[in-house]
């Protein structure tokens, strides 16, 4: 088979001596779906940036269809017909779909943009690949799945033959993922070559022709799909088969330790994210998993529980006490902890040292102050304890939070929240973007808390996570709980969640 893309001993070192890629050689055949997998920090993204001309390798050569390619900028990559669909969409919300697609390669008529030609052309490409989008719609108005299609169209508009997808499934619902894979097959049928970056084994096994595994900046090997299993891939990725989860214990139904919501209604930023008549109950020592596609009211629910959004109806009850009127701080005082969804924006002060981050959210506590000023030695003690107990690397409480890796940032948040022994913990996407090792660590900690009797509300988009951890699962759709059940068998639960995620038609028309 002919190689569409050949990498020869690519090496890239970042300032400070971090080796992102070391001597990576790789062949991607024409017309195949070639997956690159590896944990966070394995060097996948760096490698892709090198291929798409955003980074220059220190050493090594790149051949495109047999010709050596000098890639010193995105324009070069375009001229070699290499395109990249970015993980975080690079789209301008206020622009139309068409404007986003043509940006930088505008077709002109006189001085103007030739809108008619552009729209027509985009429609043509999009129908060919089964991605119906309206070129005149604004990006801010279209759903996530369609935004991704726009990203793909951007690449196709530039006539790319080799298309890199950087973790494209991380933002999609299971339905959307299916659709994406359909598009993949159509692309291959039309002679394109796909590089698929992921760390989700199941998806990789489903769609790839061949799979290359990276670990710590080096290539571990390339397998045919027929040779690969999730076990051997996982072993190659982390070099260690174990995926230890502590044994779960049963919760208790003592009334004075329960967390309960009754008929809750609250306004969100959109209609779909406004809560409509939500009731849930979490017993002590139980994990309730909330499944749902992003923007269906999860954020509103969390903000209502912690007291940022006042509910318009219903009751929030914890330990037998109604909390509706309490301030966020009074609620924390009752023993509520939170691992927010966006650890950098909602969980940490990135520019402040670890030590200051250890106080965050609990700065109101009197025990931290003496004569109105901080008890430095006491706070030093606490931060040392959190850093050592949660094995935060580097173990220095003066490191800025921004300089920690994602996994360590999450450990810091976890450590801070668990230090105060919460009786009710809200964990929103606690393992978002983390590698397998950190994910397992966090999962174990959550189960440990549960076994100690904490009520846990787990909000996640990751079905594996939900079904692995939860005792009960509720599915939220357009601000309503449309299904809830006890999680006994994870495969069955997944199917049940999958059905509910799309909502049920006659209920949609009911909403005002």
């Amino acid at each position, binding site marked *: 088979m002919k190689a569409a893309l050949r990498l020869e001993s690519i090496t890239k070192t970042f300032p400070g001596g971090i080796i992102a890629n070391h001597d990576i050689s790789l062949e991607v055949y024409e017309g195949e779906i070639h997956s690159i997998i590896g944990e966070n920090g394995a060097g996948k993204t760096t490698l892709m940036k090198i291929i798409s001309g955003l980074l220059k390798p220190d050493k090594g050569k790149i051949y495109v269809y047999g010709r050596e390619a000098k890639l010193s900028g995105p324009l070069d990559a375009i001229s070699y017909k290499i395109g990249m669909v970015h993980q975080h969409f690079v789209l301008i919300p206020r622009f139309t779909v068409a404007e986003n697609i043509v940006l930088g390669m505008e077709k002109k008529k006189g001085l103007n943009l030739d809108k008619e030609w552009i729209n027509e052309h985009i429609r043509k490409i999009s129908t060919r690949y089964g991605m119906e989008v309206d070129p005149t719609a604004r990006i801010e108005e279209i759903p996530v799945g369609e935004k991704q299609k726009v990203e793909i169209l951007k690449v196709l508009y530039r006539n790319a033959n080799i298309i890199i997808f950087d973790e494209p499934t991380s933002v999609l619902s299971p339905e959307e993922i299916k659709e994406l894979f359909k598009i993949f097959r159509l692309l291959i049928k039309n002679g394109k070559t796909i590089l698929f970056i992921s760390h989700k084994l199941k998806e990789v096994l489903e769609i790839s022709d061949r799979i290359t595994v990276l670990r710590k900046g080096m290539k571990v090997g390339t397998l045919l799909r027929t040779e690969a299993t999730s076990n051997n891939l996982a072993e190659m990725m982390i070099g260690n088969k174990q995926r230890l989860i502590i044994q779960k214990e049963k919760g208790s139904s003592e009334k004075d330790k329960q967390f309960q919501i009754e008929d809750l209604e609250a306004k969100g930023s959109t209609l779909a994210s406004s809560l409509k008549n939500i009731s849930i109950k979490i017993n002590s020592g139980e994990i309730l998993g909330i499944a749902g596609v992003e923007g269906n009211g999860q954020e509103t629910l969390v903000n209502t529980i912690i007291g940022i959004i006042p509910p318009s109806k219903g009751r929030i009850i914890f330990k037998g006490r109604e909390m509706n009127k309490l301030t966020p701080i009074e609620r924390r005082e009752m023993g509520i902890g*939170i691992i*927010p969804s966006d650890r950098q924006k909602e969980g940490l*002060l990135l520019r*402040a040292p670890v030590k200051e981050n250890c106080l*965050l*959210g609990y700065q109101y506590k009197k025990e931290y102050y003496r004569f*109105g*000023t901080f008890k430095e030695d006491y706070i030093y003690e606490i931060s040392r304890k959190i850093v050592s107990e949660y094995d935060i690397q580097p173990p220095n409480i003066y490191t800025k939070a921004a300089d920690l890796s994602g996994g360590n940032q999450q450990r810091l948040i976890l450590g801070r929240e668990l230090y105060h022994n919460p009786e009710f913990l809200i964990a929103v996407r606690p393992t978002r973007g983390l590698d397998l090792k950190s994910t397992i660590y966090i999962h174990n900690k959550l189960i440990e808390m549960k076994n100690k009797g904490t009520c846990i509300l787990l909000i996640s988009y990751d079905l594996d996570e939900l079904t692995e951890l939860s005792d009960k699962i509720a599915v939220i759709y357009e601000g309503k709980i449309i299904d809830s059940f006890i999680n006994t068998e994870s495969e069955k639960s997944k199917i049940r969640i999958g059905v509910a995620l799309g909502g049920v038609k006659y209920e949609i028309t009911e909403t005002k």
Partner: protein
Amino acid sequence: MKKLEESMRVLITIIIALMIGVLAITLTSKEPGIAIKYFFTGPFSSAYFFGNMLAASIPLMLTGLATSIAFSASAFNLGLEGQVYFGALCGTYVAYELNAVPPIIAIIVVLAVSFAAGGGIAAISGYLKSKWNVDELISSLLVSYTLIYIVDFFLEGPFKDPAAGLAASPYFNKKFVLPKILLPSDLHIGIFIVLAIIILFSIIMKRNKFGYEVRITGKNFRFAKYAGIPVKKVVIMAMFFSGGIAGLAGMIDILGIHGRMIRGYSAGYGWNGIAVALIARNNPLLVIPAAIFFAFLQSGANVSALFSDVTPEVARIIQAAVFYLVTAEGLLFFLKKKRMEKGQT
């Protein structure tokens, strides 16, 4: 290591700025040697000049502190000019009315009034920002322009001393004027009050709960909400303190030097305060040397203008140049990056 690098950078910046000043003097003066000599040595040549230099730094320290407090909450208080001026007017009026009250009480009341007046004005912008998300940078600035006219109106109308040749209020009780330190200069004990205020706020901002909440709000607004911090209140309070300190800046100058309110006496205090805060990188303690340096440039130029043919405006050019160079933190960053890239290839 980092500290050393930082101070080296500041030093280099100051040297470059002074060289620009020397250049400006050389280009425009017929006797550059004399002008430059007085420029550098003038402020230290006598107790009079030295004391005046320190006296001039007093309001700048406060306006610098005011800027940095608002900025810690990620709020820009550009209304300092108006807050200084308005705070001083209110304080002066109260001082005038309190004629018979014992000085120590009168002074405390007067300072409290100017604090409240300046703070109240700034808090309006903080409120508008919190409540309706009105940009505080613009609103405080526009309110300030308006206030200056309002104060001018009082000084030229209802609160004008008919006997004064210029637009100024009547003198208040002479006993309220703060004692001088270094006669015959203008330096007064207000400088100790100011130093105490700076130290107090430096402790509040670094180690107190309110200061910590302000910094959290400034650094990460969304997080602050999650942490249960009443962010709206914090922003309003930070603006209030900022404006209040600006009001004090105006009043201390009046209490220490003028003994009455004079039209336009504080022009530039606010703007220079912003410059001082930026040079001090929003560190309340560093505001002290930054303000003194600013005052040094000003009095150097003033002395030089007395004894040679340069005009005092040369100081403003050097001040602006310092400001320019110090704030251009990217400059060294840029050079360093270049060097690193070279080292790599």
